């Protein structure tokens, strides 16, 4: 018995460096994660009730979406209790679980604004590099999404390079997944930068800019598409989009499905077939869930309002937010 105990003590001692590394990886993500992490961390902290989004107990409005929604909608300009839970690279898959958690923690909001770039209805390109890597889901949710993705034939989830053990590796904070970030950050070089960003995003109630250019005429992803991709990723995205709308219906939450603006350059390059297929898709959703408000037109903004190809700059975000909020959550200040 003594021999066995001694063996296990030695084994523990031998693997102590590995144990410490895993513990550090799990407990101090702000020290080494990249610049996108603070936004995802903010959303997760709010949705799980670890961070109070602030505001009174009156009317509550939640924004769900991707980086465009995060950059384009500035909650503070609404004059209402709005929290922007959108994050860069998110699709309806991530936002469904965000909204579900939010409902469990805070109860039903008065309005939900859903806003994704059109290409995020066809591609979930950040599933492995953001959603799983940043542990956005709980582990059971991650497994569920993974198997649903395989079932629906998602090209991103079932990409031939990743599998279920990559999910486990991330959720157990194993060095395989985080070593490049740990080494590149020299373990804690990113802490102050990440904390700074987190505080900034918290103070902006989830809003954060992406591009910082004072005008941009670069073309966005959508301008390169000739048709809307309806297989692979789209199937799981559509499944979760419907789940979000279903949740809104079940909880009698007013829903607005908005459209992010595009810069003039990209807008002029849009393929009419792509636009009509995309509009058809939104129309189809509006037929199944007619209680919501659906925007079908993609707004066109001058290039000067863009910080990069897909995101508004500060000037643009202010203009768009004022217009959007005035239309859908009118406030005496704007009227």
């Amino acid at each position, binding site marked *: 018995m003594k021999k066995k105990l001694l063996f296990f003590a030695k084994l523990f001692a031998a*693997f102590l460096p590995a144990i410490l590394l895993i513990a550090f990886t799990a407990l101090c993500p702000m020290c080494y994660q990249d610049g996108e992490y603070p936004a995802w961390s903010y959303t997760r902290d709010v949705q799980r009730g670890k961070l109070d989004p602030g505001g009174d107990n009156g009317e509550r409005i939640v924004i769900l979406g991707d980086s465009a929604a995060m950059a384009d909608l500035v909650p503070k300009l609404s004059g209402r209790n709005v929290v922007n839970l959108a994050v860069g690279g998110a699709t309806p898959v991530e936002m469904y679980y965000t909204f579900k958690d939010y409902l469990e923690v805070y109860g039903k909001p008065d309005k939900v604004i859903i806003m994704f770039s059109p290409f995020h209805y066809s591609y979930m390109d950040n599933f492995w590099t953001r959603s799983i890597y940043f542990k956005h889901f709980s582990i059971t949710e991650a497994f569920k999404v993974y198997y649903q993705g395989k079932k629906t034939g998602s090209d991103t989830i079932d990409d031939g390079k990743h599998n279920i053990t990559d999910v486990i590796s991330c959720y157990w904070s194993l060095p395989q997944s985080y070593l490049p970030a740990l080494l590149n950050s020299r373990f804690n070089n990113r802490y102050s930068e990440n904390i700074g960003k987190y505080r900034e995003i918290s103070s902006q109630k989830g809003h954060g800019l992406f591009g910082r250019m004072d005008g941009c005429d670069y073309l966005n992803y959508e301008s390169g598409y000739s048709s809307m991709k309806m297989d692979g990723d789209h199937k799981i995205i559509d499944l979760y989009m419907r789940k979000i709308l279903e949740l809104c219906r079940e909880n009698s939450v007013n829903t607005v499905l908005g459209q992010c603006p595009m810069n003039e350059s990209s807008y002029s390059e849009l393929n009419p077939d792509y636009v009509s297929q995309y509009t058809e898709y939104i129309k189809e959703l509006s037929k199944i869930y007619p209680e919501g408000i659906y925007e079908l037109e993609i707004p066109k903004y001058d290039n000067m309002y863009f910080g990069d190809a897909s995101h508004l700059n500060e000037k643009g975000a202010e203009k768009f937010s004022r217009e959007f909020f005035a239309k859908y959550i009118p406030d005496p200040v704007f009227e």
Partner: protein
Amino acid sequence: MLFNSLQFMLFFPIVILVAFAIPNRFKYIWLLICNYIFYLSQDNAVALFLVIATVISWLSGKWLYRITESKKRQILTIALAILNLTPLIILKYSNFFLNIAGSDKRLDMILPAGISFFAFQSTTYIIDCYRKESKPENNLFKYALFVSFFPTILSGPIERSKSFLPQIDIYDNKGFDPDRVKRGLMNMLWGYFLKFVIADRLFILTDNVFSSYKDHNGAIILIGVLAFTIRIYCDFAGYSYVAIGCARILGYDIMDNFRQPYLSRSIAEFWGRWHISLSSWFRDYLYIPLGGNRKGKVRKCINLMLVFIVSGLWHGADLSFLLWGLLHGFYQVIASVSKDLKKGLTKEGGVRKVLDKGPVKKLWQLLSYVFTFLLVAFTWIPFLAGNIKDSGGIFLGIFKNFSPLSLIDGSVFKLGLGVKNLLIVVFAVFILFITDLCCERKKCRIDRLLDNTRPLIRWVFYYTLILLILFSLNLSTTEFLYQSF
């Protein structure tokens, strides 16, 4: 499921935990289940070939043991061995033979993982039963455990039935024995060090050099060849050490596959230290039955060439592997002929007297090590190129535009590794060299060597290895090289 995958890191602890928890008499059934889970995770579509090889060889063994007539037994053994090897021959070599015949047609066939290993292992059993060196196993499941044993099924060592099968019924070492587990873990740690820290880093360098070897000068190609020489050793020996470690923890002793091969002073010695399970297989089941060295010098040379041709083709169905085998066969023939010549010289001129003197002897030994290493390294060229055309290109590339300046002007840092990783790999190769030297001097394996080392040195060694492995985990995306054979 690769040894360097997370699936395996999750799979193996479950295997050992259950194996230690269940009664001894059921352990082989549990391990058999694990073997098939392991194999199915690798190649579920073709697991049928494994089942077929198992059943054919098991029935063959029983049948052969019953037949008494010697001629009939001999013919039947050859027929059954060929039948057992038929899937391997068809699946692996059809396209090669079509190519040789000048046909452009290519058959689209899946090669079951590890078929070269389990086909040889099961054929061994048939021959051992014929030779009455192994008693036929009555229990099909115990036999299936031998053929499909997960630590060895994909890349060896090619285990012998006569040493493995009796171990299934020995229960004393199947429980949790701290010493045995410790030795197993030491082997695994060393194997992972070789794979993760050295082989995977050198993969980046060699991939960079040989994917566009025409763009590099001779000195860089030479570095690539030397790096590949170390990489293939670390990759394959790494796999073998992990396999030996896993087996040991589970209570099975399997044969060594490597014994410091680059510390050889001749090609013959190299083959006694490199992929021992395969080279001894060829010796016992091909070279000796062909007559070995018993039928005269010419026949010995022919037999040697034949063995190395088959060995080359075993590694891959391409002319480049054949060339690799031919070269090694040629070296062996030259060595065999020169041995006789050397004997004559030492008798007549007394050269031996000079060579045996202190400093000259040491210098001669050192030159022998270096010469053998370089010969082996250059012979890897067709192996690494994978086709004859590139083999020639790489070989000639070394001599064309050879610029030694590129060794010191920082060009080596631009081969994908960078300064940090290159320094790590140099340090790791230094550890490997020292460890191999120590194992060679003490004539023991790494686990025994560490056991006899002072605790402080041992623990420094453990931590160095563990830390190096931890900081190399993200590099490990490559398969083990020998998995494709």
